[in-house]
């Protein structure tokens, strides 16, 4: 990406808002996603992102602000998933059953919204499903960036104990790390970032932002902190690449461009040889507290 090419889109306010919100959201998703992948909770992230759709549709159907529904639904569902699972790690089948019902409920709310409220915004469902990052207003871009920055900061703050609890739960618990509380806290953070990212890439696609950079980072390095940073960095770069690509080719929706960039990077890591061949052993975390 050359500078003159980058300079022109940034002069448009809509692009600037997308850039600001997108950068913060991508960084938060990269950080949260790393732990989602490491804790093998990608499916939980997937479920949370779909719940975001129902939340948004319910809020619209009842005439409330869309974002209220997004956050309320995802955080409530994150905590519910935590409760359903042992040690705040829910079971696959339970997640599957709950969230497919929630999606059905989303279909119900979207019908209510589009039929009973005489609205002109018939595409609200589509933009929640697939995101509309170029439609973010300046005030919501600032809010999105602040919330995402808060999520990222919290993840970095709890990274050390969370890593310990993730890699060796039993030892961590024995050393007095509040494993269960961390599990809940992390799920709540995942819920917040899912709600946040829905505005940018849509509830169906944000899984790519959670899983792909983290998956790539884990393939590239075995060292936890480096992988965490790499995951966030890759997510941000992929977001930028997607935004500029979609600006250059207007027919291409930005969400698709971002997903394509993320997938390309992840696919590329399959071509690179792993730093340590053979099955990865559990990384030992320094336990000094």
């Amino acid at each position, binding site marked *: 990406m050359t500078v003159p090419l980058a300079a022109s889109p940034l002069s448009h306010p809509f692009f600037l808002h997308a850039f600001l919100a997108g950068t913060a959201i991508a960084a938060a998703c990269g950080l949260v996603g790393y732990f989602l*992948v*490491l*804790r*093998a*909770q*990608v*499916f939980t*992230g*997937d479920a949370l992102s*779909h719940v975001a759709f129902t939340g948004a549709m319910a809020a619209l159907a009842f005439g409330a602000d869309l974002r209220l529904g997004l956050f309320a639904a995802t955080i409530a569902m994150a905590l519910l998933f935590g409760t359903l699972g042992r040690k705040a790690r829910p079971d*696959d*089948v*339970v*997640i*599957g*059953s*709950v969230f*497919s*019902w929630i*999606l*059905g*409920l989303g*279909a*119900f709310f*979207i*019908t*209510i919204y589009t*039929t009973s409220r005489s609205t002109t915004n018939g*595409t609200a*469902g*589509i933009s929640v*499903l*697939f995101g509309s990052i170029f439609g973010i207003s300046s005030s919501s871009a600032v809010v999105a960036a602040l919330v995402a920055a808060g999520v990222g900061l919290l993840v970095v703050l709890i990274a050390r104990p969370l890593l310990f609890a993730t890699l060796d739960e039993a030892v961590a618990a024995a050393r007095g790390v509040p494993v269960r509380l961390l599990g809940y806290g992390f799920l709540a953070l995942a819920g917040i970032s899912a709600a946040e990212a829905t505005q940018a890439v*849509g509830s*169906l*696609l*944000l*899984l*790519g932002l*959670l*899983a*792909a950079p*983290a*998956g790539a980072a*884990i*393939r590239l390095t075995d060292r936890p902190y480096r992988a965490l940073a790499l995951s966030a960095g890759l997510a941000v770069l992929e977001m930028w690449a997607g935004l500029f690509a979609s600006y250059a080719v207007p*027919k*291409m*929706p930005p*969400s*698709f461009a*971002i*997903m*394509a960039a*993320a*997938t390309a990077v*992840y696919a590329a890591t*399959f071509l690179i040889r792993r730093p340590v061949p053979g*099955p*990865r052993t559990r990384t030992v975390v320094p336990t000094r507290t």
Partner: protein
Amino acid sequence: MLLAETGAPTWSWNLLTDFQDMWSYPFMVNAFRAGAVVAVVSAVVGWFVVLRRQTFAAHTVSAVAFPGAAGALLLGFSAVYGYFTLCVAAALVIAALRGGGEHEESALTGTVQAFLLASGFLFTALYRGLLEGPQTILFGTFLGITSSQVSVLTVVGAVVLAVLALIGRPLLFASVDPQVAGGRGVPVRALSVVFLVLLGAATAEASQITGTLLVFALMVIPAATAQVLTARPALSLTLAVLLAFAATWLGLTAAYYWPYPLGFFVTTIAFAGYLLALGRRSLREVLGRTRAGAAPGAKEVVA
């Protein structure tokens, strides 16, 4: 949409006349037929999905039906081809790249899913002629099912069930205890690939009725409910089929009378059954505990 066509049908509580009334429309008859086929096939496949804990893969394969349909329409083919091509292809990709350990597998599945959904979005954005937009593909419709579609569904469903019947026994073994099965010479990996392909085909079928996002409900919820109710394989398999069948037909009936999406009714009925099953299990646990005087080991073991 439906109300305008049929002149606001009302439920009369007389089952015979109600069904006669509903089945006087060819599209409803087709919908009920297709629903029956889909329910049976997805319940059987879904039973193995739940047993093998592959719900995430199942969800991904089903989500992929959306870009399949959108892509086929964009290229000028019938959506059916798109469903089958992409669902089976995604199943093969997941099968081919598996085996990198737990986290890698889930990251990979998630990425495949998000990318293909994004492609579907691109296709619908490019294809302006798609009247109802992505919503119909995503959440399903039962209005446009033709008789020829029903026969295709039946044939594919029969093939899927036949293959499953052939590999059922070793697959069950490989699902319950892969290590021992591998040790006894059961081709665990090959079975897993074949199973994923079957999953793809079954999903492609069901997507046409319930929409790509809700197929998964028909696969996972009845099977999960059945496995909560009983640990015996044959019995729970039968139960899963019956539950899926009931959810589909009840859902179709409800969707005929109320102007809400079919997917909503099917998922809600299935999920209500699941909650009832969970309630029954915890009730039994409580009763068993009081009867046994809080005996240790009263916890029920679920397969």
